[in-house]
């Protein structure tokens, strides 16, 4: 199912295979204390029928990026850039909501606690036909669907809740599922089941899925391509196998080294020294430079632009360029 890397990689403009194309997206929050640049020029493409992983540590801007595309950032935030759906320009005013559904991180909070699952499905699906509603739950892998329609969220387990959330997401027949850390709040067994379900839904309905996750193991398991974000910019993007097996960006390399592995049990877990940069301060040069083991003199001046490592795999790092 891995699509052919037909384009030199993300940020190359719309091509026939793209469902969604984001160009130079910038998001700035404007609290009284001063502007916070959460996303600082992200371009990426989402292809028809693929599962695109979006990776990065907390605070790198991955959640807010897609909330902005959905028109869900507060009106006080400044959003610039362009969004295209099937090649046609689309406003970031919520227009994307017509074709996209959002699956949130915490299924316990994503459902309204004082309405039954059936009632919530009814409001979103705009039908109260119990057969249709039960079918949505069944598609999300919930066996005892008719009984669950009358259940309240607090009566369900975490896995059942996340499946109900997925059923709600399916209710409006979306083309695109945006799953924001959909398995973070779940235990390991349920995680695997929910990930398999997302894969099945893509196969069965031809859905396109964006999987936002800080967990590279989750992304490796499910995604065709991956975009690694750092400090509101794309650090690296490409086919999952390429990026995770032969990472070109020092940040991706560091992320991969900090995955706990049973094979090296007993050895201290690697972590990336330092913290992500403060979005309130302007960043000169590469945002990862202060934490980078390969930092060079020219890293501090000028932001590195994405360059192809090989077709379909881009890296935004000066290491890609010859030393000055």
């Amino acid at each position, binding site marked *: 199912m891995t699509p052919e890397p037909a384009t030199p990689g993300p940020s190359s403009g719309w091509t026939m295979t793209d469902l969604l194309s984001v160009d130079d997206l910038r998001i700035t929050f404007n609290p009284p204390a001063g502007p916070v640049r959460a996303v600082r020029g992200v371009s990426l493409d989402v292809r028809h029928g693929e599962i695109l992983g979006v990776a990065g540590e907390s605070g790198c801007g991955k959640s807010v990026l897609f909330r902005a595309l959905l028109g*869900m950032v507060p009106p006080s935030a400044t959003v610039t850039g362009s969004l295209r759906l099937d090649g046609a320009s689309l406003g970031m005013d919520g227009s994307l909501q*017509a074709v996209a559904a959002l699956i*949130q991180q915490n299924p316990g909070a994503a*459902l*309204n606690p*004082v309405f039954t699952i059936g009632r919530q499905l009814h409001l979103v699906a705009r039908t109260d036909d119990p057969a249709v509603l039960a079918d949505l739950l069944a598609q999300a892998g919930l066996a005892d669907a008719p009984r669950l329609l009358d259940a309240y969220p607090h*009566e369900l387990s975490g896995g059942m809740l996340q499946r109900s959330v997925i059923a709600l997401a399916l*209710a409006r027949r979306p083309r695109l599922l945006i799953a924001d850390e959909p398995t973070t709040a779940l235990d390991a067994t349920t995680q695997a089941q929910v990930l398999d379900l997302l894969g099945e839904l893509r196969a069965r309905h031809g859905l396109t899925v964006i999987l936002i996750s800080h967990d590279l193991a989750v992304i490796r398991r499910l995604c065709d391509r991956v975009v690694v974000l750092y400090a509101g910019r794309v650090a690296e993007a490409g086919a999952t196998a390429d990026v995770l097996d032969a990472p070109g960006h020092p940040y991706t390399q560091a992320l991969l080294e900090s995955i706990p592995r049973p094979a090296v049990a007993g050895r201290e877990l690697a972590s990336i020294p330092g913290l992500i940069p403060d979005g309130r301060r302007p960043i000169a040069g590469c945002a990862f430079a202060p934490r980078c083991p390969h930092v060079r003199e020219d890293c501090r001046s000028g932001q590195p632009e994405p360059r192809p490592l090989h077709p379909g795999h881009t890296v935004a790092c000066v290491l890609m360029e010859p030393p000055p």
Partner: protein
Amino acid sequence: MVPGARTRIERGGRGGASLRRLAMSSLVILGVVTITFAVSRLVPSDPASLYAGARARPEQVERVREDLNLGAPVMSQYVSYLGELARGDLGVSFATKRPIAEDLRRFLPATLELALSATALAVLIGIPAGVMAADRAHRLRAVGIRLLAVTSVSMPVFWSALFLQLFVASKLEWLPLAGRIDPGTHFATPTGFFLIDSVLSGSPSNFLDVVSHLILPVLVMAAYPLGLTIRLVRSAMLEVLASDHIEAARVAQVPWRTVLWRLALKNALLPALTVLGLTFAYSVSSAFLVEALFAWPGLGKYFADAILRVDLPVISAAVLTVTVVYVSVNLVLDLLQIRLDPRVVLS
């Protein structure tokens, strides 16, 4: 989500929760009865001489002591007091020698009519206004409502009452100045609630007379609970509107009206409900001032007179009445909360 929640529901269920609340309420009332009884026996004044009057001779006082069974051991007095209460006998006023239960039947409906109307007004206007005040889609309207809320919370009762009486009643002569009905109006009052009685009388002019007398005191009494309700509902709504499930509903393009008035409001009502009970209690206890200003023949003046005369049985009855009203209102709210919130099963 919460592991304990499910097992508790299986054990008690919503019916069990309601029964527990009912039992708790009865216990509270029994506790208050016991305390008022104890206090009436502990105060440094002799009930017998209070009853007999200031100029009674010692042997008259002794006869009263025997009549009222005040010489008996305190425990047996307590038991017979409980027995009388159970039969609906609240005793006799020391000052007027009238049965207190009869007085209450006359004054309680007048006060309840006022307090219930005021609370109903506060809730019926306050909840929708609170929702609108939290609606960022209509910023100007929201600001206007918040201004109204602050004004009505901060206006003292005596000031608003006098202002309305001066302006609306005296100057414009749109509404009557005071009282429950015109002196010339007469109809049977089987319930004591004039709104109901006037409807039962079958004459629209009686009903209009009652309503026109109610408007000003109800407005005055409703102001504080109204402002409070608006502010409570607004802050509860703002909190709910920031939650994940509302974001989910918005992304799913559920119409904003539905999000606001159904999905969010049902969540926001829960925290607001608890405090609404307190505003009703406020109405009952603040009734005295409003009743005094509008010459409203209710409990406020009756109880205030009793306190000034150290009329112990009436004071006990007053405490008991307020307790029963308070406990009943909170019971109703608790039961409502159990209905509204599937998660509430408190032990």
